[in-house]
């Protein structure tokens, strides 16, 4: 594989940007979580890419990535549970309507 590092990095940057876009722009709370997932994955990909290109011998980054995935999964679970709970109260998943933190 003779793909330069920069290509991979640009890929992960691009994915990150897409995820961010979605998280910031969409009205639906679930889409926001989807966007966050995308960002997560982009970051972990970035990590692995660096591991692959520089630190192949040491598994530190590998471990890191494993844990990160675990955490991301836990986080998405809790987030979705929250969305469900919030849905019960507001009767919608529109982020614009969730203003009880106001003031």
């Amino acid at each position, binding site marked *: *594989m*003779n*793909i*330069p*590092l*920069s290509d991979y*990095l*640009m*890929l992960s*940057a*691009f*994915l*990150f*940007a*897409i*995820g*961010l*876009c979605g*998280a*910031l*722009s*969409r*009205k*639906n709370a*679930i*889409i926001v979580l*989807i*966007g966050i*997932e*995308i960002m997560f994955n982009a970051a972990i*990909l970035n990590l*692995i890419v660096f*591991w*692959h*290109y520089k630190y*192949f*011998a040491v*598994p530190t980054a*590998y*471990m890191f990535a*494993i844990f990160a*995935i*675990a*955490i*991301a*999964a*836990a*986080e998405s*679970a*809790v987030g*979705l*549970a*929250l*969305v*469900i*709970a919030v*849905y019960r109260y507001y009767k*919608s998943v529109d*982020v*614009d309507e969730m203003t009880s933190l106001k003031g």
Partner: protein
Amino acid sequence: MEATFWILSIITVLGALFAVTLRNLVHCVLSLILFFLGIAGHYFLLRADFLGAVQILIYIGAVAVLMLFAIMLTRHVTGDEGAREVLGGKWWTGMGTAIIIAGLLWAVIRKDQLANVLPTGGVQTSVVAIGKALVADWVVPFEAMAVLLTAALIGAVVIALEEIIRRR
């Protein structure tokens, strides 16, 4: 090999793109699954096999399914929300920020000398080695992770559960 990269990249990017832009939520999640697949593929390409497998298992197997469940549980009674407005208020802030970041990173990466490094060879890490590392060097994070997952589990159940108890 480059072709693989590019195909996988395309799949990934398209997946991500559709995941955030489609109207129908289910379609979004399906697109997300595609995205996860792409990422897994990348992991395989980067010779992080175990991670690729984990990715598929967890993300596609658990997270995406969970999202589907959540979508199903949070549907409006009145119908598909696809007809309504997709974007939130001041959406352009977000779009702008993302574009800025993308641009920045692109500009930097392009310039950076470090970025033109080619991959080095090496011994691939085996699953056995990972397992060993988990319980030897990385035992503390491993246990902590276990606690975290337990907490997340309980927490999620509690959050989602309360309503039912109250109803009764």
